[in-house]
């Protein structure tokens, strides 16, 4: 049973695979794009682009700090570097380089982190990016995008290349439910309401959007009408949609595959605290590192399931 199945969604591509396909497809249309890798292009999926355009792919080896500053240099030389690694190594290992070589000068560098969240499974906590959104959001001028499925990841990849300025795109390792099979109108900073409802709003991104849709299905059986918003952009945040949701349902649950602090939950709470009215609950990895294990078992253990969202909804009712 995969997340999204309760609401009838089939498994589709992993967001990292969709990103990789899109990047390769867009190579001709965006001739200034180059990739900068740290020996993990076959994991992040920049590899197809780099193989098809060998002179535009740079693999600097296992050296993330260097990798990010090299990308900053390429951007200063007029290129559009897409610099990719595991979310944890990119954001955590090279954070000061992202700060000084990308964010502070406002260079047009596209940061792509794969293997975000705990759903990477067996490799364990050292490989899990669960602080990445907080780190990226903390940096002035950096946009942060967390697509929920393969189709939105493809759309986000195009939007990322069309966007001017630093941006962090967060991708995951496992195959996820395909939510946008019938098409998507993707715009950075503009959330998508996937389901309407009156009693509670569930705001989610990444893998947790499908879980939110499943939760809404389960809640419907209890007579609770939940609306679900795919908040694919954490920064700049779609404040208008959040204010409208607070007005309409008062109760808001935020779900994300990230630590409790500094991610989507914190960002939404800042808006709700200003605008009111509202009571909120948060579904996240919490304030802990996870462990090795199969992805489904981990999501269950660390409370990132439709049932956990239902529980959170009950807590604010």
């Amino acid at each position: 049973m995969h997340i999204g199945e309760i609401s009838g969604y089939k498994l589709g591509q992993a967001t990292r695979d969709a990103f990789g396909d899109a990047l390769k497809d867009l190579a001709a249309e965006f001739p200034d794009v180059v990739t900068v890798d740290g020996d993990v292009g076959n994991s992040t999926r920049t590899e197809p682009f780099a193989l098809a355009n060998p002179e535009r792919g740079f693999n600097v080896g296992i050296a993330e700090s260097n990798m990010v500053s090299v990308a900053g240099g390429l951007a200063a030389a007029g290129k559009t570097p897409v610099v990719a690694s595991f979310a944890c190594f990119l954001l955590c290992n090279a954070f000061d380089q992202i700060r000084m070589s990308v964010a502070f000068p406002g260079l047009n560098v596209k940061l792509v982190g794969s293997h975000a969240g705990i759903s990477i499974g067996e490799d364990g906590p050292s490989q899990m990016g669960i602080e990445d959104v907080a780190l990226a959001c903390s940096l002035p001028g950096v946009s942060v995008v967390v697509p929920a499925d393969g189709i939105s990841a493809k759309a986000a990849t195009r939007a990322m290349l069309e966007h001017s300025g630093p941006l962090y795109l967060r991708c995951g390792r496992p195959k996820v439910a395909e939510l946008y099979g019938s098409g998507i109108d993707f715009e950075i900073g503009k959330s998508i309401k996937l389901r309407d409802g009156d009693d509670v709003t569930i705001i989610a991104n990444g893998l947790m959007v499908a879980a939110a849709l499943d939760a809404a299905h389960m809640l419907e059986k209890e007579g609770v009408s939940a609306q679900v918003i795919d908040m694919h952009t954490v920064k700049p945040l779609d404040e208008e949609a959040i204010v409208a949701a607070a007005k309409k349902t008062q109760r808001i649950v935020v779900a994300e595959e990230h630590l409790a602090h500094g991610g989507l939950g914190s960002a939404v709470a800042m808006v709700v605290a200003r605008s009111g009215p509202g009571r909120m609950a948060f579904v996240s990895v919490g304030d802990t590192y996870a462990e090795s294990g199969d992805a489904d078992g981990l999501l269950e253990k660390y409370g990132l399931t439709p049932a956990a969202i239902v529980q959170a909804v009950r807590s604010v009712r």
Partner: protein
Amino acid sequence: MSELKEKARILRQHICRMTTEAGSGHPSSSLSAVEVVTALFFGGFMKYKADEPNWPDRDRFILSKGHAVPVLYAAMAEAGYFGVDELLTLRKLGSPLEGHPNMKRLAGIEASTGSLGQGLSLGVGQALGCRLDGRPSHIYVMTGDGEMGEGQVWEALASADKYKLANLTLIVDQNRYQQTGAAKDVLDMGDFAKKIEAFGWHVQTINGNDMDEVVQALKTAQGVTDRSTAIVSKTQKGFGILPVLEEAGDVNFHGKPLPPAMLEQALALLAK
């Protein structure tokens, strides 16, 4: 010596079995390091008490290339830190035998690693701390050759030289491959020995899959008392089951377990 070689063979069997059972992991990265880890744990070089993992005067082994942790778990099980049966819980939910070393969950693990490049700095810190307390402890750190691309390793080499840490030994497991290909294609670092020597270290270069050379080099390193020592250990990724990897057409075989049929072939090769 023949006992050590026999132990190495058993470690290799464990590595192949447990990663196939886990369905993921890095057997080839573990196999290249078997001789060094075997000699350290069973050749009398490291002093430790498996039933008292936190014995303050112990020597310490830090696996900076943490993805190769099956070799360490195999050695620890054979040394008696935990039962050999537990090896088959590798990477399973609830098991302290995580995909990368986690010192918070498994006694005897000296450093939590998995983000490459940090182990030698941790080793510098442990060497400084143990020396400050007047302990006889020696710190051994193993890095990968791809891992040497991390700038932090070179920062650590410089600090070890500054403090003349004679209680610190670095072993570079130069198995000639990293994740996306041959190390010479991804990032050719040239001659590690010359570079590390330039940082003020005592350096030896050996065939790290030859037990006699490994034992001799560790002995020589023990005799150096005025500076840190490094062993550039030239190895082959997947050593011990190379014919099986060659047949599969991938001698790097990075980050994947042997499928069951290949495991049978590998175990047959490792049977004697």
